[in-house]
């Protein structure tokens, strides 16, 4: 920085100080704008993080299956539509034979946190006259605990699921009026009914799971179903939830004969809802930024007129045109910086007040990236909006000022 810029800075400061009321007003104006941006971002991001957490927090982010679309050709032949090709109801699941090598390969990927091979089967459980359809799920209970937080979800029975444990969903247990330690009769297609003891009841917070799941160790389910050394699906959790799609796509390329489906694909409508929510939030922010730009530009345009006499005399005694421009750009920078600081304080206070008073179940989330973008965008906008007034005022002809007094 050259030394004469210090004088430009002090000029900018004196000009701003002279119109104290105007200066404070525009700083507050920018502040409110920034506060809205901060609050809105924190609200939307918090809401979305919460929704995503709810959707996939305790469920697989990627599911690998060996699906075969049996009806696909017939459907395509009838109406020629490609959409029906992907109809999930038309597919039949085949077992995955090489699940051990798939699992080993995926664990080596450091983006992946948990890999859970699962043996699934359907059947009935019966107690007295009541019977319910179930989904029999067999997996390693230690690994499953990492994905589904099984231990923490157990509401009756031993909280530490052992390899031999049999766990059932809360709604199932209520329907059959059983609890930990009770026997149930399990009926699997093509097998003799057998009696198993329930070791625990879980509540995973999802109705479909609580109503249908009967959970056991992988090998026990495989033995019961007679599937041998094969699994139905491989469930995966990744470290970065939002990155799941990319990971899924990469592994899908590697194993083209399997379906590698990310949660984003299976929740496409949720995701597009989130996207349109985000883009409406961005739209609002862009307009807020536009208002900041217009505010700063108009205040500085007025100030430029008010200060034309001073600028004229400064030019007469030799200040350069660029210096005058910089004096006004600096004013924009100062207004933008103070406005942004104030706005951040306001925005955080608003967010805090919202958490306290609105009592929402989700937390507001202010991402560092968002913060940086808002700060830079606002300060840049304020500085650049000074450009036109600065250019105009820097071209004042000192003779006009001297002549007219």
């Amino acid at each position: 920085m050259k030394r004469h810029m210090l004088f430009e800075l002090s000029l900018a400061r004196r000009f701003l100080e002279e119109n104290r009321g105007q200066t404070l007003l525009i700083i507050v104006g920018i502040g409110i704008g920034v506060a809205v941006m901060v609050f809105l971002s924190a609200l939307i991001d918090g809401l979305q993080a919460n929704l995503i957490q709810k959707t996939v927090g305790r469920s697989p982010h990627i599911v690998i299956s060996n699906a075969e679309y049996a009806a696909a050709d017939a459907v395509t032949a009838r109406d020629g539509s490609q959409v029906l090709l992907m109809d999930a109801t038309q597919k039949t699941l085949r077992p995955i034979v090489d699940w051990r090598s798939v699992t080993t390969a995926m664990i080596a990927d450091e983006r992946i946190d948990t890999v859970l091979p699962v043996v699934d089967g359907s059947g009935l459980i019966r107690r007295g006259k009541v019977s319910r359809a179930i989904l029999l799920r067999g997996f390693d209970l230690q690994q499953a605990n990492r994905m589904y937080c099984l231990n923490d979800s157990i509401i009756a029975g031993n909280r530490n699921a052992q390899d031999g444990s049999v766990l059932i969903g809360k709604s199932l247990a209520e329907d059959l009026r059983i609890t930990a330690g009770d026997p149930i009769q399990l009926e699997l297609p093509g097998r003799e009914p057998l009696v198993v003891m329930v070791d625990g009841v879980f509540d995973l917070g999802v109705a479909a799971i609580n109503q249908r799941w009967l959970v056991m160790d992988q090998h026990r389910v495989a033995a019961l179903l007679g599937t041998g050394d094969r699994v139905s699906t491989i469930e995966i959790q990744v470290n970065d939830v939002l990155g799941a799609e990319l990971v899924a796509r990469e592994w899908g390329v590697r194993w083209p004969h399997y379906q590698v489906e990310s949660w984003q694909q299976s929740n496409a409508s949720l995701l597009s809802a989130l996207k349109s929510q985000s883009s409406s939030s961005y739209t609002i922010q862009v307009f807020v930024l536009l208002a900041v730009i217009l505010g700063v530009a108009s205040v500085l345009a007025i100030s430029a007129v008010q200060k034309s006499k001073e600028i004229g005399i400064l030019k007469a005694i030799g200040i350069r045109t660029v210096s005058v421009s910089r004096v006004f750009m600096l004013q924009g920078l100062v207004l933008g910086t103070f406005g942004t600081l104030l706005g951040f304080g306001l925005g955080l206070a608003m967010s805090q007040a919202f958490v306290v008073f609105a009592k929402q179940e989700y937390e507001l989330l202010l991402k560092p990236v968002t913060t940086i973008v808002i700060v830079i965008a606002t300060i840049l906008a304020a500085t650049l909006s000074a450009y036109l007034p600065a250019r105009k005022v820097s071209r004042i002809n000192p003779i006009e000022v001297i002549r007219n007094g």
Partner: protein
Amino acid sequence: MVDPLIKITDLTKDYGEETLRTRVLKGINLEFKCGEFTSLIGASGSGKSTLLNIIGALDRPTAGTVVVDGTDLNQLDDDELAHFRNRSLGFVFQFHFLLPQFTVLENVLIPYMIYAGPANPTMEKRAMELLDRVGLSHRRDSRANAISGGEQQRVAIARALINQPRIILADEPTGNLDTANTKSVFTLLRDINGQYCTSMIMVTHDRELAGRSDRLVEISDGMIIRDEYLTNPTEK
């Protein structure tokens, strides 16, 4: 013979576009030597300010040259002209034109700070000496708009001197002042001219003040009609 400090050759200045064009200066030839105190007089609208503004590098001539201290002003671009005004000239205007956002002392230092940034103690000392010289050192910390018109004009004179220019241009410096202030401001300019050997060109309507200069130049309708050295100044 030594080169003159200012040499004006065949200077013309037109205002207005095409058909409405009027020639305000119609071929001026003038030379100014170091240390001269010149009064420029003439009727209103005769072109005095126009000439002074061109000498002061605030305006450009339509034709002709102004050479100051060996520099042809036509050869300089706008930024170089600004720098030239700052380093080589001091201005005193009819309207005092101090910056009300700054104190008296700061106003004196502004021509320095424009190029060199905040003043160092040496410069502050010089500014204080100049304020002392114009009799206003006791007002150094006053806001520039909190002092009287005559005082403001004296601060403007101190400001014109801060970069130690060889030439001071004054356009009706006493035009807005009462008799007492007129006398003190003129005496000040005259004394500074003697003390620092600064060339002074002053536009005035005051025949009496003009009569107390070294040299009298009269302009009428854009032409020099009189240019004489006053051998017997009436002052003192």
